[in-house]
């Protein structure tokens, strides 16, 4: 490489850097003030610990943002597991003049009409956690397929040779349940020796899971692994225990009771293997900041993926220490993490890893 060539390359690099710097700067300068704007959360169910964490995460974030004069007003409306009620509430929010409505939709299709009304009225609509097919909205998609795949991988690697597993599914008909099921089935293709010998719907609730597993266990051959969807691992263990069966690898779902159970199992048998995986309810926090950034004029892609939170044996004690009883392991997505997510999505890079809570806890 001769000197002029080097110079030329150097100039090009400098130019690219300058343009990049200019772009970033322009991006920052474009930000409009959202201090007078209103962002609402429309949620469809509030009856378990995961949902309570989701709502708390939203109200903590939004009220802090109000104090900091980042937004003007916020509100949470809960529909009681009814698509009609959720639609009606969204229509009311439009009339109340909300600038953005963040929606955890009860159905992939049934509240599309209300969300389209919102779009037509110039309201920004952000869909998160569950999915909806409405095209005018922004979508933050929790990667539930990956949740299932990670379980298949862990079970495949730790159950050497032929093995039977029981699948505990969630709430029938929801997109999250279908995605986790598909991810598991897809991941297990790599391990033809592993057979799903039974499946029950545990509704993501320990008591329901316990009852359902207890009901199916007598008809099953020895089970070496249990794939779960979160909120059902503790109940599954109780059922195995009551039936006098040894504890299989039960994948946990990040709930405090499940993590505590895991620790007890390891104390009894240091060789006990499992891991824990779940979507994180602080996705509501990401959705809040995404809505705020869109209102501030930032370019945000229509679809973004959110990683799931996994806990392996090494981190168990650390997570247990910071997870309150009755709650679940919470990854904290703050404003700056959301900005890196948007940046990555804008430039076509994969989503950044979920932030570790230990950095802020220590």
């Amino acid at each position: 490489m001769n000197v002029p060539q080097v110079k030329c390359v150097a100039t090009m690099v400098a130019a690219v850097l300058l343009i990049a710097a200019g772009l970033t700067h322009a991006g920052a300068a474009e930000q409009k003030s959202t201090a007078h704007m209103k962002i609402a959360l429309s949620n469809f169910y509030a009856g378990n610990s995961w949902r309570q964490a989701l709502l708390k995460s939203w109200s903590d974030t939004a009220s802090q943002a109000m104090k900091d004069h980042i937004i003007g007003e916020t509100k949470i409306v809960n529909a009681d597991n009814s698509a009609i009620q959720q639609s009606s509430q969204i229509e009311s929010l439009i009339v109340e003049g909300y600038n953005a409505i963040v929606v955890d939709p009860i159905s992939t299709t049934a509240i599309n009409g209300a969300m389209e009304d919102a779009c037509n009225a110039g309201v920004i609509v952000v869909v998160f956690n569950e999915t909806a097919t409405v095209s005018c909205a922004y979508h933050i998609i929790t990667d539930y397929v990956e949740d299932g795949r990670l379980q298949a991988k862990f079970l495949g690697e730790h159950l050497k040779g032929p093995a039977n597993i029981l699948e505990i599914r969630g709430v029938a008909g929801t997109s999250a349940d279908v995605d986790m099921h598909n991810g598991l089935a897809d991941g297990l293709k790599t391990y033809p020796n592993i057979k799903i010998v039974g499946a029950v719907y545990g509704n993501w609730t320990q008591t329901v899971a316990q009852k359902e597993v207890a009901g199916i266990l007598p008809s099953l051959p020895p089970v070496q692994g249990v794939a779960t969807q979160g909120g059902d691992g503790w109940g599954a263990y109780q059922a195995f225990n009551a039936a006098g069966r040894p504890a299989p690898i039960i994948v946990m779902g990040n709930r405090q009771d499940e993590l505590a159970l895991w620790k007890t199992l390891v104390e009894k048998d240091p060789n006990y293997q499992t891991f824990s995986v779940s979507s994180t309810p602080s996705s509501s926090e990401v959705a809040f900041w995404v809505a705020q950034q869109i209102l501030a004029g930032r370019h945000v892609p229509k679809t973004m993926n959110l990683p799931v939170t996994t806990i392996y044996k090494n981190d168990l004690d650390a997570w247990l220490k910071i997870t309150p009883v009755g709650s679940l392991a919470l990854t904290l997505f703050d404003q700056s993490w959301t900005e890196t997510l948007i940046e990555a999505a804008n430039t076509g890079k994969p989503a950044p890893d979920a932030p570790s809570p230990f950095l802020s806890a220590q």
Partner: protein
Amino acid sequence: MLRLSARIAPALRGAGLPFLPVLALTIMVIGMGIMQPRATSYIGLQLILRFVPPMIFAALAQLCVITASDIDFGIGPFISLVNCIAATLLSSHPALCFLLLAAGVAAYGAMGAFIQIRRLPSIVVTLGASFIWLGLALLIMPTPAGSAPDWLVALAHWRAPYLPLPILVGVLAAIFSQWFFRMSSYGVVLRGLGSAPPFLRDAGWSLVVARSALYALAGLFGVISGLMLTALISSGDANVGTPYTLLSVAAVIVGGSSFTGGVISPIGAVVGAFIMLLTGVLLSFTPISSDWQLSVQGLLLLLVLGLRALSRRHA
């Protein structure tokens, strides 16, 4: 004959414009206008009341069954079934779709006849039927999907002159049902089924025909409700209609009808449908958490029943 008039007289006394529900609705609308002036504009009402029409027809369907001193615990799932059929077939095979919906109405009529002939409690039969409706809906549509034809969606979003569409639908539904039940001669006969069936039979009317007519009419209103719902959500969902079972009962009772004796107020049922929807809206305009919505709707129901019991005692 004297005894017949003595039986029907209380029914007539309860007739006419339902004073209490109309007063309650007026207060609610004024309150809403004060809290959120935008809500009482044409476009505001159009948005807020968007889900009233299916509720009105669900309430009218329940009204038909309550007229016979029965109760329908299956209307919600039936509306879901209509929704799933319409979202699957209305665009591609309209003829087949209407045939199936007609079969649904016929099934409702048959259910009425069955209850009359076998003298079964309607609660048990309609509850049993609700599982059939839900099962069929899930069979057609295990997960939410489908679409509504464009003309149906356009109809639901039509901007009527002067009056927002939901109010227009309410007025027309109230006029028609009031005329049918209180003025048309067969309507009076049907109300007799709830108040004094033996006299109806002695007068030469078939109780089987009367009850199955009321149930078929309920089925027809259920179909209309389901189609309106399909237009609004432009998709099918086997669970979407479930809340209508209890909401429709509440709307009818809030509207001044009684569970027994054929004492009904069709206008009241329509007003009741508006009231049930607006409690949620009003609540959402206040800083009160929406978690209280169900409780507030329940309290409202108790309040209305209490006030009615008081006014009846003084009457």
